[in-house]
């Protein structure tokens, strides 16, 4: 497929895109570029470049340690942020994409396939052994350019996307493979066809079905966790989140225009709605925060993938000890306990 090829080309992340608050970095990057140009003329600038790179890292670390919630939103939505297909190919081996919901269409905004997680550890009385664990991977798929995003519908799935995901989850269950889902969507698509084909029914059925899955299920919020469209593939036994991802019931912009009657109040909405990883961890909506490389996941796909892989190993090892019944009970306990209320 040509679409996949162009996406892989973009993976090299050669062209840097700076966010508003990253402006102090631009000058340093420019200096490096200039030095590289002059170093061709018999001068060795390697040492100076290394110094500048170090300064960039320090500055980046400083900037990213003080991000406001709306700035985190910008990182989570970064056009170069690693997508589901990027991560699936880097974390797993032999990722093979599968297509279609067998009813209506294939939804390019929600992808899935089979893969293997190599070097899984198993301890037994005889010592440790390693094996390749087959897994089913599903996730929302955004593009890395406007053109790609139009083809991917900006990662906003239609009912057929959710039904494809369900088909693959059932497939995983039948063949006893753990499921890994990547969440990165502004939301389920609000459109004519989506409503006609039952967007609400598709998501609702996914929720009920995920509750009953008899295989280990790990959901990873890798970018934008937009409301029901995110939850529609997100009911893992464990829900993990990348450091600069968000998860919310409504976008900060939507919240601002509905509740505060002013779309410009999005920064305030982001602040008060508690949508960042630490806030979500505090109320147990997520179980663990996965560290991102300095400057955000888009700065190193490899490091991001490595960190996610480490987390998957850990949680999969724990979940693999549970029987199918225990896995369902574990999930029920998790979601049953969610909510805050007072009762006399």
């Amino acid at each position, binding site marked *: 497929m040509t679409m996949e090829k162009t996406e892989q080309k973009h993976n090299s992340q050669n062209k840097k895109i700076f966010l508003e608050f990253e402006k102090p970095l631009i000058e340093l990057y420019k200096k490096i570029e200039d030095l590289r140009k002059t170093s061709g003329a018999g001068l060795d600038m390697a040492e100076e470049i290394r110094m500048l790179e170090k300064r960039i890292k320090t500055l980046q670390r400083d900037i990213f340690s003080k991000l406001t919630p709306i700035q985190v939103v910008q990182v989570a939505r970064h056009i170069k942020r690693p997508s589901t297909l990027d991560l699936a190919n880097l974390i797993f081996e032999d990722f093979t994409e599968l297509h279609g919901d067998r009813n209506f269409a294939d939804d390019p905004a929600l992808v899935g396939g089979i893969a293997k997680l190599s070097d899984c550890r198993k301890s037994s009385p005889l010592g440790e052994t390693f094996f390749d664990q087959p897994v089913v991977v599903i996730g929302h798929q955004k593009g890395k350019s406007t053109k790609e995003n139009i083809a991917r519908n900006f990662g906003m799935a239609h009912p057929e996307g959710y039904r494809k995901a369900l088909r693959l989850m059932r497939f995983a269950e039948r063949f006893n493979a753990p499921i890994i889902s990547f969440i990165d969507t502004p939301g389920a*698509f609000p459109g004519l066809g989506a409503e006609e084909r039952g*967007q609400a029914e598709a998501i609702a059925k996914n929720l009920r079905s995920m*509750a009953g899955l008899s295989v280990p299920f790990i959901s990873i919020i890798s970018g934008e966790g937009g409301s*029901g469209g995110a939850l529609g593939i997100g*009911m893992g036994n464990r829900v993990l989140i990348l450091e600069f991802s968000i*998860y919310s019931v409504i976008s900060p912009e939507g919240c601002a225009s509905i509740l505060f009657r002013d779309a410009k109040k999005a920064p305030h909405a982001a602040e008060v709605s*508690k949508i960042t990883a630490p806030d979500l961890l505090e109320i147990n909506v997520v179980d663990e925060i996965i560290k991102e490389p300095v400057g955000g996941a888009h700065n190193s796909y490899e490091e991001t993938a490595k960190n996610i892989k480490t987390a998957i190993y850990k949680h999969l090892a724990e979940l693999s000890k549970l029987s199918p019944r225990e896995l369902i009970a574990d999930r029920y306990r998790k979601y049953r306990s969610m*909510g805050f209320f007072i009762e006399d």
Partner: protein
Amino acid sequence: MPKLSLHNWFQKKKENKEAENPNEKLDIPGNLWIKCTKCRAAIFNKEIEANQKVCPKCGFHFKLSAHERIALILDRGSFKEISTTMRSKDFLNFVDSAPYSQRILRSQEKTGLSDAIVIGEASIGKIAIGCGVMDFSFMGGSMGSVVGEKITRICEYCIDKKLPLIIFSSSGGARMQEGIMSLMQMAKTSSALSRLREIGIPYISVMTNPTTGGTTASFAMLGDLNIAEPDALIGFAGPRVIEQTIRQKLPPGFQRSEFLKEHGMVDIVCERSKMRDLLIKIFAFFVNTRK
């Protein structure tokens, strides 16, 4: 937090009859008339009340409070409410045009309810059932932690007592003042329904005007049978959001009950006056199929 007993709420409700009817009123002292939302005809309030709150001119179904619906559909005096004192907690200290905690108190005073749903055991045609009835006049019937917990409890109650379940929805979706926790109620209620289904207990979902957002995309669409009142707005995204996204006007009848039936999402569109008889027939089916 001062304790307001439900009895007090009901008293207040009786004292303040005007606040009770959320429908549009004409500017006439005493609110004897109301203007029909659909056909715009001015109709005697009494006439509408006597007609199960259905417009005698065009058949438009006005919203019912939870207790009005209970009185209309279920066997007289059979409803026994459970989990009556559960209230929302403003854990985000959320303030939009008013603090969330104040909004809750105001809605409680206005409706006499503790939150946007009442749950309990009742009978219909002498068949024992578990039921949940939502009330749109409580913060737009939005689903927060209390609605999620109560739906979960009535599911567990039905599992425990082996009773069929019915839920009447009337909701704008998630309660944004509870942030992500309102979204999690979709997962929670669907999990409870998964258990109910696993055990083989029937669940009837009745959608009334409006049922949208997270409510539709969780428990409202998951009935073994999905039933809708006529011309109710039922959908995932709100019509305005869709219009803004696709930049075109929506076709007439879009996201209405009949549209959903046409597209295979709803089993039956049933007018209010026939709802009780329909439900009795349906529950009788389940009684007779019970193993």
